[in-house]
């Protein structure tokens, strides 16, 4: 036992220190720079107090992007969960073609988001893309997908749903497949119909997997910015801007380093707080509390 104490650090420390070194500098740098007036014409670490934070409070474009992100992330994850769970329920007892389903659902989540966004951009093209062409065949009017704010958001959500529903599906399918079969037999023996079985057996048993899948997707969705860049560049105007994309504009394109630092930290803290609260609420909603 004595000897093990010495060894355990040798396993842990290389990874832990590597990550800490890579992560801690950016954090400290961001904190420090958020109190400085560093920008393109004044690239230095001076101290201007909380001025950046004060500016941020009145930056309606920033707050609008945060609200938009909440709606986008919440909305797409919910749609992904419903579709993913529904499809998983459709096929989970089907042994035939299981490999085919899996591949079908693996491919979108594995392909590069920005590259797929580039393809989607062609698809949503107002005059040359297939979406409006198909709508036309159905006798519907053309939609200015990428140049009007409402449709642009729909387009963005479609891309997100296309890319990440498979992730939900695969996690939930794996969850369903690992469920014991006895509870379902017990429900059948007790005389429960399909709906009652879903409500009282399937859904509660899937609660832990559901919560985990939703949280993971919310975390990833809250970083949304790459596809925005490729698909709409935040436009039209700033109507599809997410915090990630707005920060990119402020910090990298316009080099408002100090100001973007302040916004970065605020964004990060808001994200952590929100996700923690959401995780706790979900756990309670699924009645996971107090269970091991």
């Amino acid at each position: 036992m004595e000897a093990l104490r010495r060894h355990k650090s040798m396993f842990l420390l290389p990874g832990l220190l590597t990550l800490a070194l890579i992560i801690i500098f950016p954090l400290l740098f961001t904190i420090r720079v958020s109190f400085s007036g560093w920008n393109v014409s004044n690239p230095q670490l001076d101290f201007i107090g909380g001025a950046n934070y004060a500016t941020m409070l009145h930056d309606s474009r920033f707050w609008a992007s945060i609200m938009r992100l909440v709606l986008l992330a919440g909305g797409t994850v919910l749609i992904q969960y419903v579709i993913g769970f529904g499809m998983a329920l459709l096929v989970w007892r089907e042994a035939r073609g299981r490999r085919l389903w899996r591949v079908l659902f693996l491919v979108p989540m594995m392909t590069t988001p920005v590259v797929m966004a580039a393809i989607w951009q062609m698809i949503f093209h107002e005059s040359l893309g297939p979406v409006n062409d198909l709508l036309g065949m159905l006798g519907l009017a053309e939609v200015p997908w990428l140049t009007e704010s409402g449709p642009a958001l729909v387009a963005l959500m479609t891309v997100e749903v296309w890319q990440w529903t498979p992730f939900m599906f695969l996690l939930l399918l794996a969850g369903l497949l690992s469920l014991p079969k006895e509870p379902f037999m017990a429900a059948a023996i007790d005389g429960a119909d399909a709906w009652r079985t879903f409500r009282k057996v399937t859904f509660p048993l899937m609660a832990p997997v559901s919560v985990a899948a939703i949280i993971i997707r919310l975390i990833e969705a809250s970083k949304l910015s790459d596809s925005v860049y490729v698909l709409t560049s935040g436009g039209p105007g700033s109507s599809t801007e997410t915090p990630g994309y707005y920060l990119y504009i402020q910090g990298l394109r316009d080099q408002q380093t100090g100001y973007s630092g302040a916004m970065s930290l605020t964004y990060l803290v808001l994200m952590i707080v929100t996700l923690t609260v959401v995780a706790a609420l979900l756990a309670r909603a699924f009645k996971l509390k107090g269970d091991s």
Partner: protein
Amino acid sequence: MRSRLYPVFKYTVIALWACFVAGPFFWAMTTSFKDVNGVQGGATYLPWLQYEPTVIGWRNIFGGAGGVDVMQPFFNSAVVTLAASAISLVLGSLAAYALSRYRFKFGFIKNSDIVFFFVSQRIMPPVVLVIPFFYLLQWTGLLDTILGLVIVTVALLLPIAVWVMVDFFNGIPREIDEMAMLDGCGPFQTFVRAILPNSLPGLTVAAMFCAVFGWNDFFFAFRLTFTEVQTLPQAVVALNSSIPPWWTLSAAALFGVAPLILLALWVERYLSKGNLSGAVR
């Protein structure tokens, strides 16, 4: 629910979804064989019937006149992905093994807190990290180099490796470790000889996640490398402009995701029920 219409309903839903999934690939595939005539007149789908197929798009991406070369970015992406994944897997499995088997206590910090520290890095938006990284790499002279990109990519992948492997190791009975030690293995030998050989499914899943996230990274590469080192997603996005040479873009896009599709076909068998659900808990 169990009526005779149920199978009809089921297969209709699946077929619709399959079309939705395949749509973008079909579009990219058909567009990659068009030229300006096939694009300008509005959407066309079927070669020969609706447009005359050419290979100009494909020729462009392999260095044809007026195009780009995707081979160099491909190799850059491959090197960065492989190197960062390998480093992350090695450091990650070691750390995950320690966290799964030994108890740590630094003040109030315990094992679960350390695991949380690793995993919580996934919450960091790349945009928050990229500005400090920019200056860090600039000061160290690693900006626009493969090495610089590998280092920051490790920050992206290490949490994934730790997360997958901790769960996997937790599923291996501790008695196996104990037995190996009783059989004369020191701690490191125990890990290498008794635990790693039993961890191949977990390592495969972790490697797959690392490879996918590494390959798909765009933001870091976009902001931290420019002219010397360009990765494949960068190269593809660079072709995406409002005046569309769509055939070149489509060919490049398909080329960029082809390795991932092959990977998907290959890893499918490893995603049997245990592996993925285990990673969630």
